[in-house]
């Protein structure tokens, strides 16, 4: 469908974008009602996401950045949701706590082995946000079945890696670190560019956020930005709608 639309010579970029938006809206209406509830996301990233947060009942594809996982789990967890992290034995508990994740509402399945998909499906029924590192490739049919369960239970799935039918992909670029010198100092904060590619959306949206907070500040970029450095915060919101690439 996409390639067919692109092949039409008369279609301008504007027209394409408008049409895609309409298709998306129609699809969403038939799928999960016009406005599925949205779980909060950290301020720096929220502006990049369609709907301003993590839309319940959908999956997001993430890169391997662990602070990105903690940052995305923090806001829903602080708002009272249960979270599950599957297949990430190295998740830093202290970092998770410092970012605002409620540890008493966090469940870990560090090594699901071959049964990662079954575990994800079981937990998707009962927790608000599931973060998953797949133990192998997923078939489209399996992903569709899981997607149906996500929609029914209004669960958000965050996948480290590619995922068929993901609402958006969220990537954290390599951070720039401050605080550490050559033989002296101490890591203080890491700023990274978050890039969000919405499915059928017009290219990536990017923002610069503090991904790893300084001096015990939570790793929620928006918080860290708001309290730590107003300039970066403006930059983040200013660039919110700028399409790059």
């Amino acid at each position, binding site marked *: 469908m996409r390639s067919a639309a692109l092949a039409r010579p008369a279609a301008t970029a504007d027209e394409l974008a408008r049409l895609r938006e309409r298709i998306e809206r129609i699809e969403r209406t038939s799928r999960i009602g016009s406005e599925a509830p949205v779980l909060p996301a950290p301020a720096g990233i929220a502006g990049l996401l369609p709907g301003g947060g993590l839309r319940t009942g959908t999956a997001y594809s993430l*890169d*391997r*950045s*662990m*602070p990105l*996982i*903690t940052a995305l789990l923090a806001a829903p967890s602080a708002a009272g949701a*249960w979270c599950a992290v599957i297949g990430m*034995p*190295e*998740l*830093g*508990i*202290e*970092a*998770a*706590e*410092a970012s605002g994740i409620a*540890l*008493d509402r*966090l*469940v*870990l*399945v*560090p*090594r*699901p*082995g071959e*049964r990662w998909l*079954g*575990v994800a499906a*079981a*937990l998707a*029924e*009962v*927790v608000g946000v599931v973060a998953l590192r797949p133990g192998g490739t997923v078939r489209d049919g399996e992903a569709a079945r899981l997607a149906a369960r996500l929609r029914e239970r209004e669960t958000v799935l965050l996948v480290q890696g590619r995922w068929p039918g993901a609402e958006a992909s969220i990537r*954290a*670029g*390599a*951070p*720039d*670190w401050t605080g*550490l*010198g*050559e*033989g002296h*100092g*101490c*890591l*203080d*904060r*890491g700023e990274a560019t978050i890039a969000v590619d919405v499915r059928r959306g017009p290219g990536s949206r990017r923002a610069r956020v503090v*991904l*790893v*907070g*300084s*001096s*015990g*500040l939570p*790793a929620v970029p928006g918080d860290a930005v708001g309290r730590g450095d107003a300039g970066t915060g403006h930059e983040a919101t200013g660039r919110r709608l700028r399409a790059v690439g």
Partner: protein
Amino acid sequence: MERCLVLWFPDWPIVALQRSPESRHPAGAPLAILAQNVVVACSDAARREGVRRGMRRRDAQARCPELRLAAEDPSRDAREFLPVADRIEQLAPGLQLLRPGLCVLRIRGPARYYGGERPAALALVRLLHEEGLEVRAGIADGRFAAEQAARRAEDVLLVPEGDDAAFLAPLPIALIEDERLATLLIGLGIRTLGEFARLGAHDVHHRFGPDGALRHALAAGLDPRRFAAREAAPDHTAEVAFEPPLALADQVAFGVRMTAERFIDALARTGLVCTELRVELDGPAGDGIERVWTHPAAFDAAAVVDRVRWQLEGGLAAAAAAALREGVERVRLTPEAVASRSAHEPGLFGRGADERLVHALSRVQAMLGPAGVVTPSVGGGRRLAERQRLTPWGERPPRPDDRPWPGRLPPPYPASVYPEPIPIEVHDAHGAPVRLAERGTAQGEPTWITIAADGSGTGRDGRAAPGRAERRRITAWAGPWPLVERGWSPTERRRADRFQIVDETGGAWTLLLERDEWSIEGRYD
């Protein structure tokens, strides 16, 4: 009104102390039990020396220098009384415990059996004497009168039917066990229970409220308190024996299924659910492995079977369980803690969110084993991996540790902490490995890190080329920060040095240098 028999064990706190296993006081020694420096009970030997209840410690010791003192312990009194109560219950059913050392039972049954109230009471007292217990019995229409009779008995004192009021009338007013009311009544010139009883019930209720009215009824021999027999603690232990012994965990799990269902059903019939379960697995040689399992909600039969299986799998893996080498001969299930079933009943309109959660997590646990699903907490320690505490779902998390740990990493914390340290190489500009100099500084400037290709999750995209190590230039670093642990123990002491490093690709690490070996402790990006 049903006639009752009160059994009173004089100086019960002293008897309990002498009967308790931790006591080392010889029989016949003068003993006193103190609460807030005041004697609350004393032995006969002490009483002969002039020690009395209500005396201060100093005065008691002055009267009797060899007096042995012990602190009051209500739980000891109760603990030691329970076997006595069980023994009495074997002799005569329907027992109500009033407090340790004092209990009441219906006299009707024993009276019929022994041919009269006095013979029944005498038989009970004699049987308890044979157990080495000194006891007095009082029989009356009401509990209060029976208790007063027991306290005044040589061995048995019987108040005839309908004579409670006459028996109580001459007794001092202080016995109503309400010090303020008694003082007030003495001030009003009322010195005996009989004089109090002669006041009009309506007036007493009007002036002293319901509590005063109750005291008035007691004094008048009209004890309104109903008899409530102690319920015998039901034995919910379930057991299954295998002949011949079973060697495979699956066989045992299958064999225990029916017993588990019976165990849960039996509890359910008494309106209870099990929240803590003791599982004992015995081999042919006798003792096996036992442990207590907790459940986040309440055990059902499948959960019980899972625990038996996990315990067996864990026990067989441990070489220590030699007792089970020839298989399992007996499985015993005991409820360690129970709760009312009403608190765990599924709601009328489907289950609550939390119950669904417990159910789903238990299902995953059944798939992966008990340690498959864990809840995290932050523990104590200096190393990052030590501070990550993972507790199997359903078990009690360890107590939080908020002591200061000098040498622990300050925030921000790395988002990845490797449970097992991952080896890494650190070289200086000339390619020589960086070591620790004598003075505790780095020897050579860290310039390159080399990450093994198969290090789990070390490549930024998790796609480090197989078979080829990845070399990155270090752009910033700091350290060493020494970690000295268990310095007091020559065998257990450990020393490591921590470094923070940022590489050219934006990777930020905390590394440990221990005995000239570098490893990755955590990763920030």
